């Protein structure tokens, strides 16, 4: 049976997407606080933050910032809609990375020291995670013989059974995207304040926050695609949600037990672990297929 999400489901999912990202962030702050023996803010804290920011007046340096912020949200929104409607995974990936380009340009557009360093670090991060992300998407395409998301639902076994290692590599991407230790390099709060976001305020800062919600939804969404159980919609939803939660819990633990690393280390880690794991996994798949084909 080929599970096709209905159009209504897709629409609902794309509307719910930012709120899912928001809840993930809210739980994140709560769980982190509990791990540190604190009470922590309410679950809806990210929501309050954004509503408050929309209620504030803006102080911007120039209009270009607004354009880049809007383009950032716009591309991620487009990408989310494509993901929810089972579009082309490569296009989804490229739209995310385009969004990040706009985000970086928004940082660069103001001649400000912290913003500039934030932009630079954003680029280092892109250098670190884009190859991993791209190779993961590519290995999914290699296994499904197609880059369409809906084709993943037509596989015989879940992707994670064939290519589990890219998922491990994707943790690096996820940590970077969540702005979490050890890779919270660009927004390094205590070091360069908020990096790329520093020159934004009020509603436009809220836009960046919302874009961040989308981002989290997208990365978790793509990672949980590995857990699609073909032919069983109920189990698929359960396993995808469980996988998303598990990934996310692991990321919180990593966040709490590590300190921020230098971008040098990040690049080396991503090349040494991220890319290698994917390559090893794809090689294994090929060798197994070769042996099976030869036998």
């Amino acid at each position, binding site marked *: 049976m080929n599970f096709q999400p209905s159009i209504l489901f897709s629409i609902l999912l794309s509307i719910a997407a930012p709120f899912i990202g928001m809840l993930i962030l809210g739980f994140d702050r709560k769980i982190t606080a509990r791990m540190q023996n604190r009470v922590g803010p309410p679950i809806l804290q990210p929501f309050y933050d954004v509503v408050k920011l929309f209620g504030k*007046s*803006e*102080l*911007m*340096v*120039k*209009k*270009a910032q*607004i*354009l880049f912020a*809007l*383009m950032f*949200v*716009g*591309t991620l929104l*487009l990408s989310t809609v494509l993901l929810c409607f089972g579009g*082309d*995974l*490569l*296009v989804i990936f*490229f*739209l995310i*990375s*385009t969004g990040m*380009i706009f985000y*970086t*340009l928004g*940082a*660069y*557009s*103001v*001649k*400000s*020291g*912290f*913003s*500039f360093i934030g*932009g*630079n670090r954003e*680029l280092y991060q*892109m*250098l670190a995670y*884009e*190859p991993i992300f*791209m*190779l993961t998407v*590519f290995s999914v*395409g*290699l296994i499904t*013989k*197609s*880059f*369409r998301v809906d084709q993943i639902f037509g596989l015989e076994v879940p992707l994670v059974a064939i290519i589990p290692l890219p998922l491990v590599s994707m943790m690096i991407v996820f940590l970077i995207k969540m702005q979490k230790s050890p890779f919270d390099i660009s927004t390094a709060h205590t070091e360069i*304040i908020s990096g790329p976001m520093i*020159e934004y305020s009020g509603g436009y800062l809220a836009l960046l926050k919302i874009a961040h919600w989308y981002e989290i939804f997208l990365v978790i969404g793509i990672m949980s695609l590995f857990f699609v159980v073909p032919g069983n919609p109920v189990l698929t939803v359960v396993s995808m949600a469980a996988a998303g939660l598990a990934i996310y819990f692991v990321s919180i633990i990593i966040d709490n037990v590590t300190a921020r690393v230098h971008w040098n280390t990040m*690049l080396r880690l991503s090349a040494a672990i991220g*890319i290698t794991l994917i*390559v090893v996994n*794809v090689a294994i798949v*090929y060798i197994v297929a070769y042996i099976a084909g030869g036998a």
Partner: protein
Amino acid sequence: MDGESAKITAIALTTLAPLLAGLLCYIAPGRKSRNVLISAGIVSAMAGSVLLFLLLRGSPGHTIRIELGSVAIPGLGAISANEIITIAEITLAAAFIYLAARIKAFYALALSIAQLGAMIWYEFSYAPAHGSEHAVRILIDYWSGTMCLIVSIIGSLIVIYAVKYMEGQHSQNRFFAYFVGFLGAMNAAVFCDSLAAFLLFWEITTLASYMLIKHEQNTESLQNAKRAFQLNVIGGAGISAAIIVLGIACNISSLGEIAALEGAIAPALMLGVILLCFGAIVKSAQVPFQSWLLGAMVAPTPVSALLHSSTMVKLGIYLIIRLSPAFSHFPAVGYMLALIGGFSFVSTAIIAISQNNAKKVLAYSTIGNLGLIIMLAGIHTSLAISAAIILTIFHAISKALLFMGVGVVQHEMHTRDIEDTEGMIAKRPLIATIILMGIVTMIIPPFGVFVGKYMAIQASVAAPWMMILLAVGSAATVVYYVKWFGRLISTDREMERKPEHMSTLFSTPLAALLAGAIGLSFVIVQVVAWFVDPAVASMGYDVVLQAISVEVVTPSGYISSIAIGASMAAVLLAGLMIKLDDSKKTRPYSCGIEFPGELGGMYMHGYAGEDKVNKYVNFAGIALIMIFVAIGIIAMAVGKVM
């Protein structure tokens, strides 16, 4: 005018007219007459290329084949076209020897002499004895037609730009002679099916590029021109060797025969193809031959624009894509090409991060993109070739735009340093915007280069290990372009609107290219239907790229440039409508004081610096090239294609 003569006219307009206009430029008495000649040359090239493409659509089988037999010359009787080509080739080789001796380029001298001897022996002693045919064959299919359009239109726009750029500089006659002639030679090369004629025009582009690079006549440009000359002579020698090997061992004298071969393949053919590809790799400045193209930066910017975007380096691409159907007989060749191209792509992308010279960044970007195209040609699936053609078209447009933009900056602000152009959007919004748009069309969806890259990734499913190179390379590409973009827009206050003067001769070609880069990206469905699919089909591939309403559909995915572009444009327009009044403006945050320092950097010299990386890159490049050629020789030795 019947069909046949119309075709001959169109060919003559695109090839002979620019060559002739170029020759006449040499002896033009003044500026006005030279400008008239230049205009005549480029107008006929543009008109001819469009006419030719239209004729191509109407021709049977969508190909134009012409055999030039003999030409009757009054007083001399009939001379076969082949003899004319041979004589021209020998003259050119003699000129090369003279040049090489004069600039003390001893490798080139030795190679040229050997090449001349070999060609004379082959053409006058071997070929007549073995009854080789004498006709010069011209074969124009959609791929040649598309190349001709790229060369003629983009090249002509660069010529218009050059007229203004070179105003008031020395020896303009000679400059424009080679500049305009270049277009003719380039067009002629892509039309030639016969290898001997192809070699002639190939060598003419080498000569012309040498002359253009050394235009400034200072120590640096002479030195770099010499390097370009030496390396390109090596490439030319590769082609000559290929002609002799193919002629003797396989009795093949044209490109079309190689691509169309079927059945049992002689190992010599493999060696011949490898030698041809070797020549193309040199021409396209792939690692380890990248130094000539980087050195060519000393030339005036229009020269760089011409060499990088539409001509010269694209000739190597043209040749490899033309030969690509043959790779299915010997997979090792395709694989090695893909490796060489992919390696060039990733290494130049990384080195480009460390560059602060705008022209050098562009040069590395060119080499990288050509590497990507060569990699795709090496993969030689239908999708890969489609992607390669899309990249060729859009890369030519965007790169010409970028070079010309940087040229205007150099011409008026006298700097090539990216750090010097910080905040240029406030000082020179017009030209800054043009460079910014050039960068955007290189990296951001839904523009053409992006679509090409998107398809390249899908195509590399056929050769998955290439994907590692592709992934790292494209991430690095994004980094250096975004970094540059960021420098240009970095200001601490809103820009002031002030009138900005730019010469029409600058603004017209720039506007045309900008419109082309954006417009063609939006109608990419039509580009696929008119240029890419027919070109792929004309080389004998199955067409796998479908253009369905607003989507380009590949076998494993789909992309709708129009939908993405329209949504992004809508957001952009909405953003432009937002007003930001002065009460909502503030200064950048810098701990409560005015930002005191200067921004800059992020060149990652520790990872990407030329001095750190070059030795490894060159070593690996040389090793790859040696393995590549060795494969051919081994194939000959063991008598088996691989």
